[in-house]
């Protein structure tokens, strides 16, 4: 069984048939480390932003999930100051049948539908729960300030 084969195949597909609004390019010196960009989904406070992330495939991949982190500052209840993401498929709901592509699509979907009931950034989650329009306004401001294309 050659695991890198799966990584190569995934990389190839990400290049030839990219998911809309998502790019993932491996480093030349480390094929397990990807520079990722995700476009903020339309209709969300993150629309118009271009968010940078890093993605790393650990030795155990695909038995263990990839490690994904936002590098662009973002005001979101499930993403903390360090850019760590609270997403079930990156933790206990991981399945080896999932791929880099599906992971990044899930991250993009998280931008469309924040879940303040399962918060990672508790202060942001509180803001989202108590004053949704106000919180979304901050998210928009941050998107303009930090994620402008």
């Amino acid at each position, binding site marked *: *069984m050659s695991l890198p084969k799966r990584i190569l195949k995934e990389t190839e597909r990400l290049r030839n048939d990219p998911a809309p609004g998502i790019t993932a390019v491996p480093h030349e010196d480390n094929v397990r480390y990807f520079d990722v960009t995700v476009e903020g989904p339309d209709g969300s406070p993150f629309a118009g932003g271009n968010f940078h992330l890093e993605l790393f495939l650990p030795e155990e991949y695909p038995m263990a999930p990839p490690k994904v982190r936002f590098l662009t500052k973002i005001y979101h209840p499930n993403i903390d100051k360090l850019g760590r993401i609270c997403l079930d498929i990156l933790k206990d709901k991981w399945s*080896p*049948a999932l791929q880099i592509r599906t992971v990044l699509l899930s991250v993009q979907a998280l931008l469309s539908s924040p879940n303040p009931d399962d918060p990672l950034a508790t202060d942001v989650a509180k803001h989202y729960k108590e004053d949704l329009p106000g919180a979304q306004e901050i998210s928009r401001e941050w998107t303009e300030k930090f994620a402008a294309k």
Partner: protein
Amino acid sequence: MGKRSRTLSTTSDIDNNHHPRKRSAHSPVNLPTPTSTKQMSDDAMSDYYSDEEMEYNYSDADQDVDDVENEEEEDYAQFTPALPAKKALAWDVEYDSVEPDQLREIVTKDVDHVAGIFGVEPEIARALLRHYKWNKERLIEQYMDSPERVLASAGLPIQLGTFYPSTSRTPAKAKPTPRSKTFSCPICASTQPIDMAMALPCGHTFCSECWEMYLVSKIKDEGECDVRCMEEGCAMRIPTAWVTKLLDKSTFERYQELLLAAYVADNKNIRFCPFPSCDLAVITPNFSPTASALSTTVPTVHCGHNHTFCFGCGEQQDHRPLICAVVKMWLRKCADDSETANWIKSNTKECPKCVSTIEKNGGCNHMTCKKCKHEFCWVCMGPWTEHGTAWYNCNRYDEKAGVDARDAQSRSRASLERYLHYYNRFANHEQSARLDRELYAKTEKKMEEMQIASELTWIEVQFAKRAVDELVRCRTTLKWTYAMAFYLEKNNETIMFEDNQRDLERAVEELSELLESPIEPATISELRSKMTNLTVYVQKRNEIMLNDTAQKYQDSAWIWNVSVPEF
């Protein structure tokens, strides 16, 4: 109390003084056997049995002891003096110590029972029970209602028998095109011969190597024994047959451990012995450590290797009479305040008279300065002469002195001093118990030497061992009474509590002091009788202390000076 022969039943009575009502079903706690016993030949044994020295008579114990009979099956413990049988303490819970194999048998019995009722393979029953957290009643009720729903929720195929427990190496529903001799595994992206494909009843097909890696990572890295299908969102359970087939020996052993651990975790009446590298478990058939039960009792148990621990919180000691929730508070406080308390814990202090450094080297609090011969109390540093028989004054936090202290100093200082007062005594008994043990080791060695030079035998040392065991036990009680006193609201109950504490403490220190006295062949007989009597007395005081606190828990008579969270 009438006559009592020193037979095995006596032995178990002695044993039962400390853990009464322990059942013997699963070879419970054995008394520790000294290595010297094991080394003795049968002939030597019978010599000891007929030894005149074996006839003890204890006025305090209020009983006679018959001559020892020459019974081969009797074990060494009978040589320890018989003590009065005790009523069961209010704390005691009924329990068994079980070996991993016995535990597996218990699990198998549960599994077979359910398998019999449902008419399914044991593996299915086991998976169902695990899914229902071993709540047999609820499982049976819901299965009778709708087996399909129950099976599906547990990640089992509805059509049983087509899959479980047989090992299927060919896909249940072949995904690849029928003519294909190869298939492409979506996990590793490799093309492989079709017979490398393995599918669960859900139809999800992956190569055997991927299944194996997946199982190993779930079991070894994540400690998970309920492994589901690799496909995202699919709950189908992987059969044990696959686990057996695909895994190496060490991973399979880990899997078995996890299965057992899951059973124990789901079962409130079972707890693994918390001592490192001990694989025994303790079962309490009639006791569940609920928050309300643990607010009035401390379920101290002993595993078959004689490790003492609390069935409620897993603390590796007998923390009676203080309940788990308060023990937790106290230990956290001690950890937080360790900096301030450190100086008190240290083994050295200065002589109050000549200020030369003195090291405490025995459990006894009666100190004599080597330099100026000044005698003082280690606990309060006051002169020993003032203590005399009333030395126990230092078990109380002197309210009057406390008031003065509050006048002179800030309130926070007073509260720290109050804490240090109790902590000092708590730590002192902890340290003394250790020193008593060390002292005993020295004594035993000395006695072994004397045994060679004289007619004395290893038996002579047993009374000292009993004394030390009792000392350590009572110091443990005393230790926790100080933590308890720290949290108790002052009232009539606490006055009585402190009286009992003082009586126990005095007896303990007296016995501790006796243990320090020189052992000479000429006086050993006298020393033995003195020490044995005192041991009996100390044990009695300990029991009074524990019985009284237990009773007042039952009567909800203890009032804490802080709010105690539910455990």
